[in-house]
């Protein structure tokens, strides 16, 4: 079947509404995506028919819930090409996944004087856990710079990667610059230096094929809600030998093997990390989101976003006073457009766009060090996804021009 964004859009009921009396154009997908009917129906069906706790009941509903929950894990495994489902841990989201690595793997492997290497383009969730780890362990947190074009500076990476480096943690795709980092090449360099590579894949997994074995990453984190799934569910992938040597971050029910008054032992992977009742509905919903994405084809999603950018880019660069951050070469970026419009504050831009029904993000996008590096306190961001059409792109451009005129003349 041929790809049609219009047909796909019809699967997302939320997009069919007026906002401020204008048809909604949702361009805040890097913050969270919308959910197709199949995901909503799957979650509802779970609660209506199968709701029970997992891994502890022998009754029929408990078996159904457990089977669905573990089937979702296998869907994730195949989706990211992990070697086995035991390497797929369910978490609350990317932030929790990264915190787990920093807390458990980090505390065991980073010691006084060791170095952790991240980049200036990271989201706060891939900065603050490492800052805290560095403080606890008296280690050093170092930053890879970006090039003037807005790419990860590979020379900066190479020169800072030393025998002291224990962990390198980088975004696969920047949530601001939209740039795709060469993870496979970086993994090779990191492993040569004897360190492990952690990857924040929150902006990658929803938009492009990810093969964790081909990339040869040690840890890979992402969220369900940015890839058409529910909020509150995410994934931490880790290589088995690393997960095996890690202590759980949380303790309690579900994750234990034997508990005596003074000592306990843990279940095997992946359950030793999943203390307490997990987000069962979330995991099952994520499984449905993966089914939906696979039915469209992840390569088709990526190609659609590329084509949208090719359509949009010349229209945007024709607007005088519009500054777009990140590389100008479209093949180096995804469907994220972060910008400033003359000296109009991004909040004013976002409010004006909202009046036109266009939902964009404004602020620092949880990347204050990057905003400082780019020399802007804040910026506006439009981020496109599988259901966005060329009509959405046209409306975005039209609203930008109207916004610019409004603030130039103080009237319309």
């Amino acid at each position: 079947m041929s790809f049609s964004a219009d047909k796909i859009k019809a699967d997302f009921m939320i997009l069919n509404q007026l906002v401020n009396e204008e048809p909604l154009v949702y361009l805040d997908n890097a913050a969270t995506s919308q959910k197709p009917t199949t995901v909503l129906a799957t979650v509802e069906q779970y609660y209506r028919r199968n709701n029970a706790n997992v891994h502890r009941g022998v009754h029929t509903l408990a078996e159904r819930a457990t089977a669905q929950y573990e089937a979702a894990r296998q869907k994730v495994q195949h989706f990211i090409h992990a070697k086995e489902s035991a390497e797929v841990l369910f978490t609350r989201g990317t932030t929790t996944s990264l915190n787990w690595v920093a807390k458990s793997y980090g505390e065991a492997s980073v010691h006084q004087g060791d170095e952790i290497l991240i980049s200036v383009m990271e989201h706060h969730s891939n900065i603050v856990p490492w800052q805290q780890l560095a403080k606890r362990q008296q280690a050093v947190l170092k930053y890879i710079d970006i090039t003037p074009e807005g790419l990860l500076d590979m020379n900066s990476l190479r020169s800072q990667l030393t025998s002291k480096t224990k962990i390198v943690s980088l975004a696969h795709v920047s949530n601001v610059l939209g740039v795709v980092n060469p993870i496979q090449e970086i993994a090779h360099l990191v492993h040569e230096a004897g360190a492990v590579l952690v990857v924040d894949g929150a902006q990658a997994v929803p938009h492009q094929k990810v093969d964790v074995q081909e990339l040869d990453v040690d840890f890979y984190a992402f969220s369900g809600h940015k890839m058409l799934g529910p909020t509150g569910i995410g994934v931490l992938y880790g290589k088995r030998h690393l997960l095996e040597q890690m202590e759980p971050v949380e303790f309690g029910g579900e994750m234990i093997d034997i508990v005596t008054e003074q000592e306990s032992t843990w279940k095997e992977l992946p359950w030793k990390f999943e203390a307490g009742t997990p987000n069962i509905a979330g995991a099952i919903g994520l499984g449905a989101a993966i089914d939906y994405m696979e039915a469209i084809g992840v390569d088709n999603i990526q190609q659609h976003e590329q084509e949208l950018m090719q359509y949009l880019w010349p229209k945007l660069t024709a607007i005088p006073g519009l500054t777009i951050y990140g590389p100008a070469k479209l093949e180096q970026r995804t469907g994220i457009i972060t910008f400033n419009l003359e000296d109009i504050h991004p909040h004013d831009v976002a409010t004006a766009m909202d009046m036109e029904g266009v939902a964009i993000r404004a602020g620092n996008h949880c990347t204050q060090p990057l905003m400082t590096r780019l020399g802007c306190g804040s910026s506006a961001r439009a981020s496109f996804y599988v259901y966005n059409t060329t009509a959405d792109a046209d409306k975005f451009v039209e609203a930008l021009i109207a916004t610019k005129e409004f603030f130039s003349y103080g009237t319309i």
Partner: protein
Amino acid sequence: MGLSKLDQLYRQVILDHSQHPHHYGKLDESTRTIELNNPTCGDVIQLHFLIEDDRITDIRFSGHGCTISKASASMMTDLMVGKTLEEALQLEKQFSLLVQGEEVQDVEELGDAVLLSGVAKFPARIKCATLSWKALEKALAE
């Protein structure tokens, strides 16, 4: 609807205050200074006060922000010169109610800041309007 509704928020007087803010800069001598930021947008405001005998005799603001936060700071500083600390805090309370769409008595006492009442219809922007006023409250409470 489109941008016509924006006029409710961005009245001409508000745009004027934002483009040509009053009391913008620093004082040669200030008796109290405070900095407050809005972490969601990265806006930062600094207030510099000259306070004599529990009265604000001069005030300046600096920093960067959006149209609403700059205009609001400009209007706030216009209003506060000459006020006692008690009066200033009372006005801050009134303004806070106004932008949340609550009933305010003696609304004319708020001067140009009355024009920001339209912010109540844009809940995401209330924080922009109140940033400088919250900074004032925090500074005077110290």
